[in-house]
């Protein structure tokens, strides 16, 4: 078949036609070649080593900070009374929020038959796993004595006591660990056919064995595919409410309290929208350079960037909506503490953080109304980084402003992070990027089997229309009998 020109603008979708999702030479073998080649390079590039060296060093910084924390105690952090939740909780919510994009792309967009997701879902799911690892770290360390962590599990222990299931902090334990487990299964299961491809292409013994074990002996059997697709659909159906529940539970940590600025009923959907917003921004932040470096422009086309930018615009607008509604109800409630908290956020000592948040989350993404910006990867990268910054500051605003000034002025306080806080946060980026670079080096970064099934070369588009692609079917008269029922 003839290749589709790489510079075709597939963001333009004339009504009644569907634009191609993959550009360039897109037969099955060339997709395999393009994706596997990345994981099969005999040695990584110098840039990879540079990035890996940097992030590995930062990971080392993280572990050094953790060692210092465990050795000395929580006093090395900036937390105090009244601000007992400092960077640890901010970072937790930040990372777990980022970890929502992967499951959104793989589960929710799957249920919505958005086939463009196939080029980016592997990537986003991997990012989800690593972000949730970084997220899980912070609650684990913020208790100060991590060797008592097992108290969180409902295990019969020497004290004859059980965890307090009425505490939202325990809900978090269940939500985040469930989310991690399910995301991992989803990611791994999606990867099995692609690991089999890598196994079948492997030349060295060690790669054959390693990919062979990881691929579980997958042989593309039609009987296997049948159950596999069923299981994938079921996992997607389970992961969809799960992904909504996780950030909702995180929002419960705040919203079940009585603290002004935390207790708002809109928190659950507002947090979920924010999580998807930040997650997509992080996907773009990582995807745009990777796409460029590995020359994946034919698989991750302008259309993919355009769609992701639109999702960022939509979710960013939902976040902006929540900011406005919260502000309005703070006034409308007539509750002086609520009103004060919101004025304090906008005008008080931490006003700078509020305005960073508002600008980055509610204003800058509105630039994405312009198609030209959605089409310029460099600018999109800049906007996505702004969103990452804004969403970190959103959590800063929520945690710090509400705690530092609550009901009683005599108990007000000020919070500033220490160098340990800052280096731990920086170190968590090191861990994230280290894991991510290893993923880029060794695993199939695009879901080959899924991309192959949406290109015309697969020949799947014959017969009735199946969600995407050309369709030349006839009006289905065969449905007549069924419809008579």
């Amino acid at each position: 078949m003839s290749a589709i020109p790489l510079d075709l603008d597939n963001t333009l979708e004339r009504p009644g036609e569907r634009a191609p999702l993959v550009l360039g030479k897109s037969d099955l073998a060339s997709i395999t070649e393009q994706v596997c080649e990345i994981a099969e390079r005999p040695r990584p590039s110098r840039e990879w080593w540079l990035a890996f060296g940097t992030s590995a060093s930062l990971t080392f910084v993280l572990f050094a900070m953790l060692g210092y924390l465990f050795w000395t105690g929580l006093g090395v952090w900036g937390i105090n009374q009244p601000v007992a939740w400092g960077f640890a909780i901010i970072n937790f919510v930040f990372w777990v929020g980022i970890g929502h994009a992967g499951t959104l792309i793989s589960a929710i967009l799957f249920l919505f038959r958005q086939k463009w997701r196939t080029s980016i879902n592997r990537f986003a799911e991997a990012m989800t796993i690593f972000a949730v690892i970084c997220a899980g770290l912070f609650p684990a360390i913020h208790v100060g004595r991590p060797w008592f962590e097992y108290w969180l599990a409902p295990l019969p222990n020497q004290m004859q006591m059980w965890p307090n299931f009425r505490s939202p902090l325990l809900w978090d334990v269940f939500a985040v660990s469930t989310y991690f487990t399910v995301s991992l299964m989803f990611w791994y299961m999606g990867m099995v056919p692609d690991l089999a491809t890598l196994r079948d292409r492997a030349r060295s013994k060690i790669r054959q064995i390693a990919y062979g074990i990881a691929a579980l002996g997958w042989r593309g059997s039609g009987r296997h595919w049948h159950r596999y697709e069923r299981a994938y659909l079921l996992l997607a159906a389970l992961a969809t409410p799960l992904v909504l529940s996780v950030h909702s539970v995180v929002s419960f940590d705040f919203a079940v309290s009585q603290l002004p600025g935390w207790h708002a009923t809109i928190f659950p959907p507002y947090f979920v929208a924010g999580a998807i917003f930040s997650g997509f921004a992080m996907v773009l932040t990582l995807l745009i350079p990777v796409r460029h470096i590995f020359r994946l422009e034919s698989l991750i086309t302008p259309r993919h960037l355009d769609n992701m930018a639109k999702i960022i615009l939509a979710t960013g607008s939902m976040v902006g909506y929540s900011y406005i509604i919260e502000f309005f109800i703070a006034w409308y409630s007539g509750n002086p503490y609520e009103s004060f908290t919101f004025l304090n956020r906008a005008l008080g000592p931490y006003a700078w953080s509020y305005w960073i948040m508002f600008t980055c989350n509610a204003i800058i993404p509105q630039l994405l109304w312009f198609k030209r910006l959605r089409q310029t990867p460099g600018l999109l990268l800049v906007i996505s980084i702004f969103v990452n910054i804004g969403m970190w500051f959103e959590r800063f605003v929520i945690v710090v402003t509400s705690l530092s000034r609550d009901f009683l002025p005599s108990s007000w306080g000020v919070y500033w992070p220490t160098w340990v806080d800052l280096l731990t946060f920086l170190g968590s980026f090191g861990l994230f990027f280290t894991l991510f670079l290893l993923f880029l080096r060794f695993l199939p970064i695009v879901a080959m089997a899924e991309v192959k099934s949406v290109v015309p070369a697969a020949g799947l588009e014959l017969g009735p229309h199946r969600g995407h692609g050309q369709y030349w079917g006839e009006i289905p008269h065969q449905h007549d009998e069924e419809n008579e029922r």
Partner: protein
Amino acid sequence: MSSHAEEKGRLWGLLAEYETVPAVLEAAARVRDAGYRYFDVHTPIPIHGLDEAMGIQVSRLPWLVAGCGAVGASTGLLLQWWTNAVDYPFIISAKPYFGLPAAIPVTFELTVLLAAIGAFVGMLVANGLPQFFHPLFRLERFRRASNDRFFISIEARDPKFDPRATRALLESSGGRPVLEVEG
């Protein structure tokens, strides 16, 4: 014909290669109609309509998942009720020992967790995976099953299997080449 055909005991089956999805779909339907049971199709991508062409029964996996979910939900409720309201009741923040609204999140998470494990493990077990060795892996050509080619394998243990007739069927359905697989 090669000399392998005579060594009947060592023959696992035949493997035919196809280039396109419509070709393999049509061939699978013919193999099904010929009455074979121990045959399989190997493809790099999931193909809709293959289930029908192969005559696969619809998987009962959803029932397993629903069962696992029900177990997860009841475990979640019982665990929270028994630990916090029966075995060691204590009052905290003026909440009832067992208040349903506060028990929903953990119940929900456990439901999803067990159902998802059921879907994942159930799929692997029903598929007999992991299975690190399979006779098909002996063939160099079969490596393309995970890349860009479509295959049909018919096992020698099938009662209808006959080295010549089966080969003829596969060849007439467009399989090029048709290879023998050693057991």
